[in-house]
């Protein structure tokens, strides 16, 4: 698993052509809302529990 593979998958998911260039100022002080964090944690637990068929 390479960084390039992760980047490709991320771009595909977000329908982007290239990685956005964000300034530190853009994300500094950016709070992650509780519902976003809860969604993330739920997916994290789900991915640790469930298996999906690969190739």
């Amino acid at each position: 698993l390479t960084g390039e593979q992760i980047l490709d998958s991320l771009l595909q998911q977000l329908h982007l052509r290239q990685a956005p260039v964000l300034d530190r100022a853009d994300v500094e002080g950016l709070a992650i809302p509780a519902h976003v964090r809860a969604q993330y944690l739920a997916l994290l637990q789900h991915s640790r529990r469930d298996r999906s068929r690969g190739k």
Partner: protein
Amino acid sequence: RFSLSQSFREVVGKFLLSDAALRRHGLSPRHARARVTIEWLRVREDGSNRTSLIDSKLVSLHESGWKTFDVTEAVTFWQQLGQPRQPLLLLVSVHREHLGPGASSAHKLVRFAPQGEPGGVQGEPQLELHTLDLKDYGAQGNCDPEVPLTEGTRCCRQEMFVDLQGMKWAENWILEPPGFVAHECVGSCRQLPEPLSFKWPFLGPRRCIASETAALPMIVSIQEGGRTRPRVVSLPNMRVKQCSCASDGAPVPSRLEP
């Protein structure tokens, strides 16, 4: 026909032919084809039938040769059904590509070559079942971190760490996670015995691949309308849960869901 089988010793096969039509018909256009379909037929507890499509191919009516239908997935699934299990019933049906005169007797257009005894009158579809003992031919689970990886290492799942913070493109974009424990499939797989690889050259070598995977969730920052906000995304197949040995184009030997 069975080979290499330990656990299938008790399996016996039976061929049933349902001859539905007796009408004669002519073979006209040179390009006439018939569709041969293999279905798995299961009888429900209430006596009704359920069929599942396994494979289907168009066969030229003016050619002769072997056509192979891969029923591995159905056999694997059937093998994992609880006991007592029904016999595995594979339904072979033949339909003309285009409906018209003679469509009802299309099954007579495709002949199955006689097997076994030479000079046999009625050919039968042949099921070849080859099993591999995964103790020898499968993957070994997780790699031993104490043992260095060599050419002879048997297929296993090796732990690695992906550091997203160290990747320039991820800077200020990926908010969570900063990194994660991932796995990769490494090592080699025992190849099929010579006679089998000769018989199915299209299968290709058995390789150590990820057979079960899970998604990797992330929180990324996205810009919309001049504002930056966090968003959850899930990247499929990023976490390797299990490695297996499999040939390209062949189903991976693992648990199947109904």
